[in-house]
């Protein structure tokens, strides 16, 4: 299959040998599960259960709100202990509304859950509805509601579904193991999604450092002509969907657009697997695969984890820390975020827990920029990171935007190669956040002006009405004889 080149990119050591040969293991249930109502992009779900209620596995815990949202389901059977604030799986350490569940150990599925005998006979709308009801979101980490992506067929002319098996982040191996151990299910899910999208071509794209997964998929897809397996060169960020589509089709996604603009929709293999389970078995999304790895973990593993399990549970199962890690990361080392603690639960987007040593992180104090332009060579989006960072440092955020800040995908390639160890991506994330905050502030200003004008107008209207009433009364009394006031009568008397 003809492949195209992408610009830039870097080649970090993939360190996947730590966990790549570890078969998936089921993590035992934790004593308490904390299921956040916001595990996806869009509006948070609202609780559909009460405190003290007994729920079965797969029962609805939270209802999605609005078109961009997703429901949340019970990962196991048990009792709802409470609905309240709990630390979120987020770098800020802030809390989020969470449903705490105490498992009863029976792990009993909800009565009546069943799949569809032939998903390919269903209407695409029906498939999307079931995917939405199952709470399936992008499992590669983006957590965008998958049903919304399936409905893209209504607005765009689509021709290909790409299953993103690149897994370009170092250490992570969960997609690799999934494609090796559940090949048929992933393929089935992909075909169901293709049917829902109305496309006739499926490409399963896998990086060349996963030969067994490539072989397994090729063999499974051997008698399905619509499905092809593409071997991707090992390059970070090959898993970025825009660059993945460029590698496969040679076309760049137009700026501020979607890959659907050029007829392609990209989904993660775990999402395909979840779609298979939802359609064939009727199971909502209640668990996911997580790679626990890093130099500071005693036994790196790939675990199947019920959603809501505290991170500490995974670390303990993997033998704890062999040394105090320098960083504890959620996700991969390039685009992952630090975990605020180990109490936080595993959510739909958690694909990795990494305990990294200082030697692996290789962090050094930042030095002044020497304009070596290694970052320019590494940027897959053709930007000038050193210029953008210089503008951001000087407080000129508009200049940063003019240089292309909004086209930055935040992959971290620039920071990875910078010899001066300048935190380039942090400058860009700060700038993006600050621009968003200013946008919100401006909107608030406009609203405030409107409210103040309304108030002024209202008070003015009231005053005007008073003046008119007084003028009207004056006109009335002008035509009548003056009424005698008590003072007048006394004066007369």
């Amino acid at each position: 299959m003809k492949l195209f080149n992408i610009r830039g990119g870097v080649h970090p050591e993939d360190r996947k040998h730590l966990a790549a040969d570890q078969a998936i293991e089921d993590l035992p249930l934790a004593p308490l599960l904390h299921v956040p109502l916001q595990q996806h992009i869009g509006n948070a779900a609202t609780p559909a259960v009460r405190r003290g209620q007994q729920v079965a596995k797969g029962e609805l815990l939270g209802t999605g709100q609005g078109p961009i949202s997703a429901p949340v389901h019970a990962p196991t059977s048990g009792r709802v202990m409470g609905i309240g604030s709990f630390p979120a799986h987020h770098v800020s350490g802030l809390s989020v509304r969470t449903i705490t569940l105490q498992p009863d150990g029976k792990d009993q599925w909800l009565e009546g859950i069943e799949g569809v005998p032939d998903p390919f006979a269903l209407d695409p709308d029906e498939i999307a509805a079931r995917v939405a009801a199952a709470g399936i979101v992008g499992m590669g980490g983006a957590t965008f509601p998958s049903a919304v992506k399936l409905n893209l067929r209504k607005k765009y002319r689509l021709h290909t579904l790409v299953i993103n098996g690149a897994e370009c982040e170092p250490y992570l191996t969960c997609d690799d193991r999934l494609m090796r151990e559940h090949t048929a299910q992933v393929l089935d899910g992909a075909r169901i999604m293709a049917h829902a999208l109305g496309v006739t071509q499926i490409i399963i794209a896998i990086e060349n450092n996963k030969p067994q997964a490539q072989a397994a998929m090729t063999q499974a897809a051997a008698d399905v002509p619509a499905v092809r397996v593409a071997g991707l060169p090992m390059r970070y960020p090959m898993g970025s969907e825009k660059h993945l589509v460029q590698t496969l089709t040679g076309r760049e996604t137009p700026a501020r657009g979607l890959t659907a603009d050029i007829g392609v929709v990209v989904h993660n293999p775990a999402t395909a697997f979840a779609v298979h389970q939802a359609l064939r078995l009727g199971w909502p999304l209640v668990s996911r695969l997580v790679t626990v790895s890093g130099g500071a973990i005693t036994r790196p593993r790939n675990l199947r984890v019920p959603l809501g399990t505290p991170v500490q549970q995974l670390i303990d199962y993997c033998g704890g820390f062999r040394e105090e890690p320098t960083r504890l990361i959620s996700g991969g080392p390039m685009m992952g975020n630090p975990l605020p603690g180990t109490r936080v639960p595993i959510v739909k987007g958690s694909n990795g827990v990494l305990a990294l040593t200082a030697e692996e992180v290789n962090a050094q104090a930042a030095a002044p920029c020497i304009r070596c332009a290694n970052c320019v060579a590494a940027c897959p989006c053709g930007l000038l990171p050193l210029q953008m960072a210089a503008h951001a440092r000087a407080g000129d955020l508009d200049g940063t935007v003019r240089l292309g800040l909004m086209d930055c995908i935040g992959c971290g390639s620039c920071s990875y190669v910078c010899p001066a160890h300048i935190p380039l991506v942090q400058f860009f994330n700060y700038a993006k956040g600050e621009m968003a905050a200013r946008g919100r502030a401006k909107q608030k200003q406009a609203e405030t002006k409107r409210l103040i004008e309304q108030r002024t107008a209202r008070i003015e209207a009231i005053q005007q009405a008073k003046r008119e009433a007084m003028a009207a009364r004056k006109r009335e009394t002008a035509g009548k004889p003056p009424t005698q006031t008590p003072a007048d009568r006394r004066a007369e008397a």
Partner: protein
Amino acid sequence: MIIAIGSIALLGLALGGLLGLASRYLRVEGNPLTEKVAALLPGSQCGQCGYPGCGPAAEAIASGTAAVTICVPGGRAVVEELASLLGQAVNLAGVAEQAPTVAHINENLCIGCCKCFKRCPSDAIMGANNMIHSVFADACIGCGKCFEVCPTECIEMRPVAPTMQTWFWPNPAQLSA
């Protein structure tokens, strides 16, 4: 040499004459800057700058009587915009980024006197005579006028807490400083 002196003198006279004509016939009346400055200010008429409203403050800033740093609720964003509009260099270190605040009424102490309701410039307080009042957090601009006037001191100005949707990475340049 005479030619050199003569030609330079002629040039000077000609260009100087042009400048004089321009200052006479191309002069800009009034101060169009005031309107532009006013558009940048928050418009909440809170009075924290010391001027009776955003209009007078805009005039003062445009004419140079007031510094660009006087607007407290505007924060750094407004100072930067004003500075770039007026072509001034400004030292942002002195500008405190005031955390936005929102008023909150303690309903146990509210007596329904309506004083705050009447004072609020953006109609963010809902209430009626002898009814407990409440604040629309979305409409509240944190000017503090209700706080000043409440007889039972039941209003407090609370800082707006960041949420997961509003949190973002801090500026690395400030961290290392």
